[in-house]
């Protein structure tokens, strides 16, 4: 059982602050590191993997600083985001080489076990250059688990995987977490993270925006103000009805250049509003032509978490 601790960690490159005053503790089980692209997830993982020195704060594994300590790799496995591998060797040779680099007592047996675990036995004799993106991801996973590490760090591990491979990797991570391994994986997709991660850490713009189980994160995300663009058969009447509802805090009637109009609504209570809107329209014989979320990009959701 291992624990990775980050204490007031910041990391900057010149004028760019990649990670800003992050404190978190990763214990046994699966933790999802959620955030949009450029949020600092990879930087954080590289600091946890001992490749990057924090500009401020400390990153430790069971109390030992991680940076420049090669011995930590006996306990840490890493699945990098970048695809670069030794393309001229076969999958088997590559995983075996990784087992040998770890100086395992029986590298062949360890490589066999890792390749079987990621279900790459059939393709193990092929050169890595012939693999699909999903197969490469699985071979990367095999190299990371070949020495049975206590801590497994995965940077966007589901990229390029088909649904079956994704499900298999999720099951594998879940099992490893159940067996007391400390697993951290990064993703920018909430649905992906909430399926396996007992705990979710949200990063936005280098800051630690939220922490908790997926229910808490879901609640935070759905509780925020939502904006909708609505078109109906009588926009003006519908707008007056919506503004009378406590679940909405603002309504704007917008006319576009073609003369068509729509309503922009700011809803403060997401659940109440989506239940109320059809009833309001139905009572007034108004037909809803379009109800479209105006700010559902992941970035806007994350921005809310940071700025709340």
């Amino acid at each position, binding site marked *: 059982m291992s624990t990775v601790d980050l204490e007031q960690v910041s990391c900057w490159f010149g004028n760019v602050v990649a990670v800003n005053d992050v404190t978190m503790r990763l214990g046994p089980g699966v933790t999802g590191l959620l955030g949009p692209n450029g949020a600092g997830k990879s930087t954080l993982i590289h600091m946890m993997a001992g490749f990057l020195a924090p500009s401020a704060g400390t990153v430790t594994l069971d109390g030992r600083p991680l940076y420049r300590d090669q011995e930590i*790799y006996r306990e840490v496995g*890493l699945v990098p985001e970048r695809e670069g591998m030794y393309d001229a060797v076969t999958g088997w040779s590559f995983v075996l080489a990784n087992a040998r680099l770890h100086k395992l007592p029986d590298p062949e047996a360890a490589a066999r076990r890792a390749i079987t675990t990621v279900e790459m036995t059939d393709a193990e004799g092929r050169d890595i250059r012939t693999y699909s993106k999903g197969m490469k991801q699985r071979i990367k996973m095999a190299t990371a688990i070949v020495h049975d590490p206590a801590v497994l760090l995965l940077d966007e591990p589901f990229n390029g995987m088909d649904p079956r491979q994704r499900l298999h990797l999720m099951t594998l991570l879940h099992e490893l977490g159940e067996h007391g391994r400390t697993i951290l994986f990064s993703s920018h997709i909430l649905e992906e993270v909430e399926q396996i991660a007992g705990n979710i850490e949200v990063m936005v713009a280098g800051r630690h925006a939220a922490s908790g189980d997926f229910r808490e994160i879901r609640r935070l995300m759905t509780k925020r103000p939502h904006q909708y663009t609505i078109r109906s058969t009588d926009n003006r009447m519908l707008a007056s009805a919506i503004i009378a509802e406590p679940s909405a805090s603002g309504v704007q009637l917008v006319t576009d250049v073609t003369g068509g109009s729509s309503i922009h609504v700011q809803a403060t209570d997401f659940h109440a509003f989506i239940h109320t809107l059809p009833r309001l329209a139905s009572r007034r014989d108004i037909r809803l032509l379009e109800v479209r979320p105006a700010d559902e990009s992941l970035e806007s959701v994350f921005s809310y978490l940071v700025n709340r």
Partner: protein
Amino acid sequence: MNATVASLTSRSLLGRRRVVVLLLLPLALLSLCTLARVLGGLDADIENELDTTLAPDLLGAFGIVILMPLLSLIAGTGSIGPEIEDGSIVYLLAKPLNRYSIIVAKLAVAIGVVIAFGVVPIAVAGVVLTGEVGTVTIAYSVGALAAGVAYAAVFLVLAVVTRNAVVVGLIYALIWESLVGGLVPGAQTLSIQQWSIAIVERVMGESADRLGVASAVSFGVGLVLLVVVTIAATCYAGRRLQTLRINEQV
């Protein structure tokens, strides 16, 4: 030295396309030497020149001045540069391995390539030109080996330090050593080419003067500088590998 690192490096370095590039220069040298030998058989003057100045000129000007730096540049930078570029170096760095042992393994592979594609062809060219395994052949083979080791170490550390290692290496070998060294005598003191010619001169002994082989530095200075630069470059490469930043995305 780590055999697994060496094995992975050699399989990456000796890809089909790169082997073709590595073969081009030694084949050109051997073709040139064979042509000179054939012409020597037809013309007494050329035969006479082969025995006096043509052999050292060809082995020096083509072998030491062109072949060795260019081969070492490909081998030295190619042994680690592409792995840093595409991020695959992480598979070596995320292991409980001494960083210096990684560098030593990669340098050993680069030196092996330099010997196979540079030193051996120069030795064969020497035999073709002189018709014997004599002083000229041995001197240039030893000189080429010394140059190859030092060049490989310097170009390897360049690949660790900068993404533009090939350009910087070419500037050093072609502009500094050949152009600036030819115009400014003092620049020759800082030239792997001149240090290795000092080795050639020493191995040739008394016949060096007769064959017109002369280095800008003495044998002692050349040897010490070759050893110091090779060791310093290797140590610095290992040190830089300890703090190599592989995460380019913020």
